[in-house]
């Protein structure tokens, strides 16, 4: 029970951190960590399938896609 309470609170804090990180390059890493926290919450809620799904998707696949997208959109004038 305490484990579940802690997991829910960590998820709430994690979501706030993801939203408050404004720069996308940094937000990707916070989002990946948030995916891990979500996956832990799903595990503690007795949902191993969902935890597996969220781990593979939210911590790896989506941050990878976002990083590749960001690397494509660089501003030539800002590099000095």
């Amino acid at each position, binding site marked *: 029970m305490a484990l579940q*309470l802690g997991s829910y609170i960590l998820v*709430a804090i994690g979501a706030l951190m993801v939203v408050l990180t404004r720069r996308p390059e940094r937000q990707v890493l916070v989002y990946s960590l948030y995916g891990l926290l979500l996956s832990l919450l*799903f595990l503690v809620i007795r949902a191993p399938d969902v935890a597996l799904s969220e781990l593979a*998707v939210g911590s790896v696949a989506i941050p990878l896609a976002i990083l590749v997208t960001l690397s*494509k959109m660089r501003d030539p004038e800002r590099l000095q």
Partner: protein
Amino acid sequence: MDKVPYLTAGWVFLAGLYGMATSRNLVHQVMCLSVVQSATYVLLLASGYREGGLAPIMIGARPDNATFVDPVVQALALTDIVVGAAVTALLLAIIIRVWRVKHVLDPDALTRDES
């Protein structure tokens, strides 16, 4: 403890919504949308939880009158996560297109342009 799970889902939803509305970067907005989607997963799974229930895998030894947590909401959530990822990827592709044409990633600047 009774109130925390559902309120967490609501909090995450509102936080993601706030992030989306006050965002100044399209990629940041897409990630906030993903956070909003994760709030629905938390709500689904929290509503299906049964006190003293086991995970819905029927392998191994278990007591005779064991109950399980609800598998239907878990089935919904796990397909949802993967499909949400694909839609996020589609949004990222659209952002790449927008960048190539306009070279701006600020949603406010984009709407101000069309006048």
